[in-house]
């Protein structure tokens, strides 16, 4: 039964892509329309309904301040996606800029930028993020910036590699001979052609950023209460794990599913773009 189901699922070519799109779409809609979907105010404290198990009134139960977990998770989706998009936006901007410069100008500039990438890769990024957070304040803005600033290295390497081959292609030479300036060459002729792998990296990057944010919030160094985030709901649930399983199960599950969705989407786009895999 299970085998046949799995076989069916995997034999269809676009099923992983559809599944990824479905998860990402649902989560995005939940985040955008949070005020309409959430049955309660996510920060409304209700001392009469502390640690209620899931019921008709509270689908996913309540936390130790009587707040509705489902509503908090819907608003938490906003935080997760927001962090994911902004952090990846920052890492893409830095990565693309440095990658283009390194790949196009080569020589000394390339050497300097790539050694900087090596240095950044030597810091276990979670240590680096925590260290910077310790010197600043843990806040939503700060963690988005810090995650973005510590995750651009992969994109820079990708864009550099693409630029290295693209700058020798005929159409780029043709554009240069027709008088296109460096700026135009990079932005109009090289960058668009280097974008496909970057798109894949960006999608996978959102997943990674969501994971990092939830881990930081779980450790109490990310999004600060009372703003709800999946990570800090789990943190608050940890102390009452023995009596309130719903606080530890559902937020974790939504992190897992969301990250899975972005990963599926990213991997499917990669497969679609890679002509070598099409033969299989």
């Amino acid at each position: 039964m299970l085998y046949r189901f799995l076989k069916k699922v995997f034999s269809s070519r676009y099923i992983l892509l559809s599944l990824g799109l479905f998860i990402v779409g649902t989560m995005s809609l939940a985040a955008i329309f949070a005020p309409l979907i959430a049955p309660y105010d996510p920060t409304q404290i209700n001392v009469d309904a502390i640690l209620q198990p899931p019921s008709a009134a509270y689908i996913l139960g309540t936390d130790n301040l009587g707040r509705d977990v489902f509503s908090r998770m819907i608003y938490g989706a906003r935080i997760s996606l927001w962090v994911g998009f902004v952090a990846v936006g920052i890492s893409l901007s830095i990565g693309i800029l440095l990658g283009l410069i390194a790949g196009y100008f080569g020589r000394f500039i390339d050497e300097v930028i790539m050694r900087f990438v090596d240095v950044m890769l030597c810091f276990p990024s979670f240590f680096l993020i925590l260290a910077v957070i310790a010197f600043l304040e843990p806040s939503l803005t700060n963690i988005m910036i810090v995650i973005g600033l510590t995750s651009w290295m992969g994109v820079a390497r990708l864009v550099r590699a693409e630029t290295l081959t693209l700058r020798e292609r005929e159409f780029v030479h043709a554009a240069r001979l027709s008088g296109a300036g460096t700026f135009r060459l990079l932005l109009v002729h090289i960058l668009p052609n280097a974008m496909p792998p970057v798109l894949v990296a960006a999608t996978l990057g959102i997943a990674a950023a969501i994971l990092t944010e939830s881990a930081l919030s779980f450790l109490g160094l990310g999004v600060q209460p009372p703003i709800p985030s999946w990570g800090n709901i789990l943190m608050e649930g940890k102390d009452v794990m023995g009596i309130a399983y719903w606080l530890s199960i559902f937020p974790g599950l939504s992190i897992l599913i969301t990250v899975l969705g972005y990963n599926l989407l990213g991997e499917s786009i990669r497969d679609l773009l890679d002509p070598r895999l099409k033969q299989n």
Partner: protein
Amino acid sequence: MNLVKRVLAKILWLGIVLLGITLLSFWIIHLAPGSPTDMQTTLSPTAGAEARERLEKIYGLDQPIHIQYLNWVKRVALLDFGQSLSGDHRPVWDKIRERIPLTLSLNIISLVLILGISIPIGIFSALYQGGWFDRSMTIFVFIGFAMPSFWLALLLMMAFGIYWPVFPISGVTSLDFEYLSFWGKTADLVRHLALPIFVFTITGLAGMSRFMRTSMLEVLRQDYILTAKAKGLPVRVVVFKHGLRNALMPVITILGLSLPTLIGGSVIVESIFSLPGLGQLFYQSVLARDYPLIMGNLVLVSVLTLAGNLLADLGYALADPRIRLGAGRQ
């Protein structure tokens, strides 16, 4: 010649990266608002401008910034990271040193497990590509990639610590550890470290087995595999001698690259399971804003990662006859 050149280039690279690590770390220290002497001067009602100047002289803060950097590097090179700001005021290096063994052994044990499990998974997935084993492993890999390690740890604590209490969920040893026999001590350690090592292993397994599968598929597509099969060699020899040896080469590189993630994971796992390792120390120092301790940890883990990268590179050079024998041929 080839080998010598490679080693020289590597040493140059090492120097540049070390310089970069210290510069970046030094810059992070200066992210903190205010001056390190604020605690004793501006914020203290009894201290005046004179006391402030005196303190700045003691700490060398009146020097230009590049001199401060050089002095800092000099002290770091001698493993002098200053004193912890916490109540015990112990030297940072002492606090770090006593915690290295636990973190290092956790990471090494997990790494061995990850390799021991993911390599066979990768081989069989690649050999029977599209079969039921490969498909179920693909599902496992996708879930493993998306699994937050702290949530996995929470679930395990809930399952095996509360609802079905078979494993202790915090610390390294039981209270009566001193009185146990040798085997009792070993069993006690294993019971305490089983869950943390499981979390480490599961989170690393997904990536490594996926990588091994891709690498093996790539190799099996090569002409020399076809030749070996055509010669009539047994499948076992083709797969393990011709295939596996070549497929393992990229794994050495990826091992070095995956080191930072593994070490980074110890912050989460050690804090959740209350294991007194480097990760927990780092987490505590961040919470307490114990700046000297944070910097000591940061410099140490980055240098450890660098060392891991170098080892991986060396391993690659030794395993690849084209590089290893390159010197003899010239």
